[in-house]
């Protein structure tokens, strides 16, 4: 085996890739966990208790100075670190953008001063690097911040704010001293309190919870451990599933590798028939032959697994710097647990041994006499064992049923996504195994569908190819299998990303039912409304009155929008406002108001309204403009917009803010366009990385096709000679082998695209929350590209074998056993 380096290389590559995938998934999980722990623990540092403001509670009741003083009296409390995190707008030209305002951080290992100094005097501020880059700020510059009115501050330093300062590393931050923040924001309370002290976390927490004033603040009181865990779960909501997803890719990559390795070993054994037979004639027992093959496989497995580990570690290390920009998956560096090394190693070696067992057993069946016979008569059929077709069909059906359960039934029952993902993955894997096992029947059947068309396109060589491709169904299935899995994975990722994106989009559309909203520093003028309507980017515009009102009985705060009669046209979903009347309240599900109930709102007047729940409204509620004015006569006017379908959302926002900024009050266009563009970018980056990895899987599969074709060419030597004698030209012989490879690739492409699309949509369905809708999306251009690349790759795989085949003169090819 070690004497056929080229074939061996393909098996080793396949193994290394599969192992690398598993290793990368595990190491990514470890690295993520390590990163999240430092991040979550970072801000808490050595605090024992963390209090967090409840945003719905009016300021005077919240975490005030008075309360902080009261905390200081609790036995065991030594120090209370106060933090305010809020937001302000900062104008640049006619635009406003949002900045995070926070109290000046303590400098640590993770939070370091880049340039300048910390604020000392009132009116001095520090910004993080994100803000400095965004605005091109340097120490000495003036920073305008606007909450109710605009104030000027002097920038004195730029800080590299780490995870112990903020959980939102990508946002632009301005750090101010506490009095400045209070003055600017008009608030007198803190958003977070970190309590340092003596005694256990639990005792201290209990003592704080027992304070009568604590209940009145409505603040969340957590031990440092609880707060840390909570933040980790907030962070990891996506990343745990990502690890599971990656691990399942790893599992599939291992299956592909197994197919290619088994096929390669079978070919190697077939080519060594004479050598193995000779061993038998000189006295090697069957057991010795078996062990020889297995030991070689084990060594190959070990070597490839080591390469795979290095690949996996390298991939994670490479992802680390790229991950900074993504919200879901941020890792600071590579972290490796022992499990991350042992599991992939074991997988790789067992896989190599497992793939070698069937060929090794075939090797033991080689009779010593084979050494004396001409070579062609004893070629071992290198097919992967397929099992019983009924069993395979049963596995396939069970797999798809499980997939449907994971994708549709379980999410509808509202079980945790973790469970539905596991069931879905189990179903997906089972169905892939089933389809592969059905390959002996499925692959020739699909190939025969293409044969007539191919004969039409390519003439006699293509017709020959169609016959040859399926004459050994087992080999055709094994060859196609590897590429099939590759195409499935790539398609699944592509369709999954598109579907996920479309589904999240739908979700966002629901939460923010309008494309864009224009808010202004003063009352928006009618001229501005008319100007907005006249823009080609704007399809519809309506005046909104926005405010907040409490319910009369339980003082629940509701975010309210008052709609004019023309509002429906500004919604993507025009039915959203059906049923809106002066005596109704359209409520989103997150308001937790019951459909059909009556609620009394206490504004300027008390108004009783009938509740109609509209899922698309999220946490917003809607009333008519007249109801709104009755509740809150001074409710600020804003402008709701629907963008034209052909408008570029990011560009449209720029245009609109420029057009409306000219006259009347300063405006800010709030749109999801940026968020969407950012989401698109994240998805594209992740997709690119994963597709890059998967591309290697396809390359491996193609090497497998080349291997198999090489063996077929070897076996069909005489046949090729005969065809050449009959008048098949060299070009036609090459074309025929090319068509054969392309046909096999086409089968893999068709099956792979269909299955991959199903898995992609189902995968999103298992991951997505139960109340969200899955919007299947098929990115046709990308799918066409996948098909083209796979077909081209299949053809490329045929180049070497076909050139070798066509070089043999017909007379030599025809010679029997000489």
């Amino acid at each position, binding site marked *: 085996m070690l004497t056929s380096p080229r074939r061996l290389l393909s098996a080793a590559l396949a193994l290394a890739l599969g192992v690398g995938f598993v290793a990368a998934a595990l190491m990514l999980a470890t690295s993520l966990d390590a990163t999240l722990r430092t991040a979550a623990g970072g801000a808490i540092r050595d605090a024992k208790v963390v209090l967090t403001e409840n945003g719905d509670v009016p300021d005077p009741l919240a975490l005030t100075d008075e309360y902080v003083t009261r905390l200081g009296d609790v036995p065991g409390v030594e120090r209370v670190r106060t933090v305010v995190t809020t937001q302000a707008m900062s104008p640049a030209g006619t635009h406003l953008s949002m900045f995070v305002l926070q109290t000046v951080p303590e400098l640590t290992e993770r939070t370091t001063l880049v340039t300048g100094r910390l604020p000392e005097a009132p009116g001095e501020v520090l910004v993080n690097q994100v803000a400095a880059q965004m605005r091109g700020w340097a120490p000495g510059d003036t920073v305008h911040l606007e909450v109710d009115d605009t104030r000027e501050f002097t920038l004195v330093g730029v800080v590299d704010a780490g995870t112990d300062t903020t959980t939102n590393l990508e946002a632009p931050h301005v750090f101010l001293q506490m009095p400045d923040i209070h003055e600017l924001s008009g608030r007198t309370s803190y958003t977070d309190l970190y309590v340092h002290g003596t005694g256990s976390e639990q005792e201290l927490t209990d003592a704080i919870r027992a304070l009568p004033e604590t209940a009145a603040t409505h603040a969340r009181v957590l031990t440092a451990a609880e707060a840390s865990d909570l933040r980790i779960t907030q962070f990891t909501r996506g990343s745990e599933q990502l690890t599971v997803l990656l691990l399942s890719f790893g599992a599939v990559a291992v299956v592909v590798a197994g197919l290619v390795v088994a096929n390669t070993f079978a070919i190697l054994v077939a080519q060594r028939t004479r050598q193995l037979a000779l061993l038998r004639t000189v006295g090697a027992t069957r057991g010795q032959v078996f062990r020889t093959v297995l030991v070689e496989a084990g060594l190959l497995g070990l070597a490839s697994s080591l390469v795979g580990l290095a690949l996996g570690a390298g991939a994670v290390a490479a992802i680390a710097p790229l991950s900074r920009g993504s919200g879901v998956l941020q890792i600071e560096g590579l972290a490796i647990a022992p499990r991350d090394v042992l599991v992939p190693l074991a997988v790789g070696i067992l896989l190599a041994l497992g793939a070698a067992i069937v060929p090794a057993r075939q090797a033991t069946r080689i009779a010593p006499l084979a050494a004396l016979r001409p070579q062609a008569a004893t070629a071992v059929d290198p097919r992967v064992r397929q099992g019983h077709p009924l069993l395979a069909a049963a596995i396939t059906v069970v797999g798809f049923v499980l997939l449907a359960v994971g994708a549709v039934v379980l999410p509808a029952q509202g079980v945790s996504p973790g469970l539905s993902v596991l069931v879905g993955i189990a179903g997906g894997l089972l169905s892939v195994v089933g389809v592969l096992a059905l390959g002996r029947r499925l692959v020739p059947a699909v190939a025969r569908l293409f044969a007539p068309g191919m004969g039409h396109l390519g*003439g006699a060589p293509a017709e020959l190819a169609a*016959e040859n491709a399926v004459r050994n169904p087992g080999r055709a299935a094994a060859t196609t299998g590897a590429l099939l899995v590759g195409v499935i994975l790539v398609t699944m990722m592509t369709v999954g990303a598109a579907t996920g994106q479309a589904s999240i989009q739908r979700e966002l559309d629901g939460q923010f039912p309008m494309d864009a909203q224009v808010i202004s520093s003063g009352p928006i003028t009618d001229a501005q409304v008319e100007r907005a309507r006249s823009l080609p980017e704007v399809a519809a515009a309506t005046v909104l009155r926005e405010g907040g009102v409490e319910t009369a009985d339980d003082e629940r705060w509701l975010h309210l929008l008052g709609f004019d009669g023309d509002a429906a046209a500004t919604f993507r979903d025009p039915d959203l406002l059906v049923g809106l009347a002066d005596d109704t309240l359209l409520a989103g599900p997150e308001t937790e108001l019951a459909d059909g109930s009556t609620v009394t709102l206490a504004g300027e007047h008390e108004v009783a309204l009938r509740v109609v729940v509209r899922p698309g409204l999220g946490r917003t509620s809607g009333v008519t403009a007249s109801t709104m004015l009755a509740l809150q006569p001074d409710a600020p006017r804003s402008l709701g917009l629907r963008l034209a379908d052909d408008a570029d959302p990011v560009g449209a926002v720029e245009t609109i803010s420029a057009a409306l900024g000219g006259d009347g009050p300063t405006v800010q266009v709030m749109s999801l366009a940026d968020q969407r563009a950012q989401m698109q970018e994240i998805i594209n980056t992740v997709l690119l990385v994963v597709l890059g990895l998967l591309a290697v899987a396809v390359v491996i599969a193609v090497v497998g096709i080349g291997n198999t074709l090489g063996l077929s060419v070897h076996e069909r030597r005489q046949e090729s000679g*005969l065809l050449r004698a*009959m008048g098949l030209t060299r070009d036609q012989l090459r074309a025929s082998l090319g068509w054969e490879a392309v046909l096999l690739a086409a089968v893999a492409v068709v099956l792979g695209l269909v299955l991959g699309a199903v898995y992609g949509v189902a995968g999103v369905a298992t991951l997505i929350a139960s109340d969200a809708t899955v919007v299947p999306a098929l990115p046709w251009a990308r799918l066409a590209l996948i098909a083209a690349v796979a077909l081209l790759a299949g053809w490329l795989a045929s180049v070497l074998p076909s050139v070798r085949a066509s070089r043999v003169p017909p*007379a030599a090819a025809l010679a029997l056993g000489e």
Partner: protein
Amino acid sequence: MSRPGAAVRTEALTKTYGSGETLVRALDAVSVDIHRGEFTAVMGPSGSGKSTLMHLTAGLDAATSGRSWIGDVEITALDDKALTLLRRERVGFIFQAFNLLPTMDAQANILLPLKLARRRPDTDWFDHVVAVLGLGDRLTHRPSELSGGQQQRVAAARALVSKPDVVFADEPTGALDSAASEQMLTFLRASVTDLGQTIVMVTHDANAASYADRVLRLADGRVDADERR
């Protein structure tokens, strides 16, 4: 260049393998004419060069030196593509074994050369050849479902159906029992006598050679005897 009546002609045709001390002369400057409408047998012991002569004159292998014609075309001057097209259009083959493609039925095998040449088969001629060879009820069978004799008859039908200038038969009866051999040789003889087909048959069997008009005996890569009967 070619004398009238010569279907195949060679001039000092030579094929050597290896070099230096291991040089083997498989064919040593052989010059012969094969006449149109004649049944020529090429005989000789193993290693005499009879198969090499056939491979070179049929354009299946390249000569080391010398020249060779089929009709008035000098095949030693053709590139591989032109040579292949020439074989397709003007040469028929019957080999000792492995004559047929296992994936095709008898009819598809018979029509293969025409299909490769994209020529429309002459239906009357096809029916005639099939009828004479007694293959009418075997056309839909695959080679694995045919006896050795039937397989050789399918090969013969394939060689004749394109009405080639010359048919090369390489030990066509080598793998057949005596009854099937007799049948095959009788058919070859008849196609020469009745249809004027030119046939070159390589054989080591004196009985097979006795059906021929002319017997070329080769030894050590040279023509040893040229007998006409």
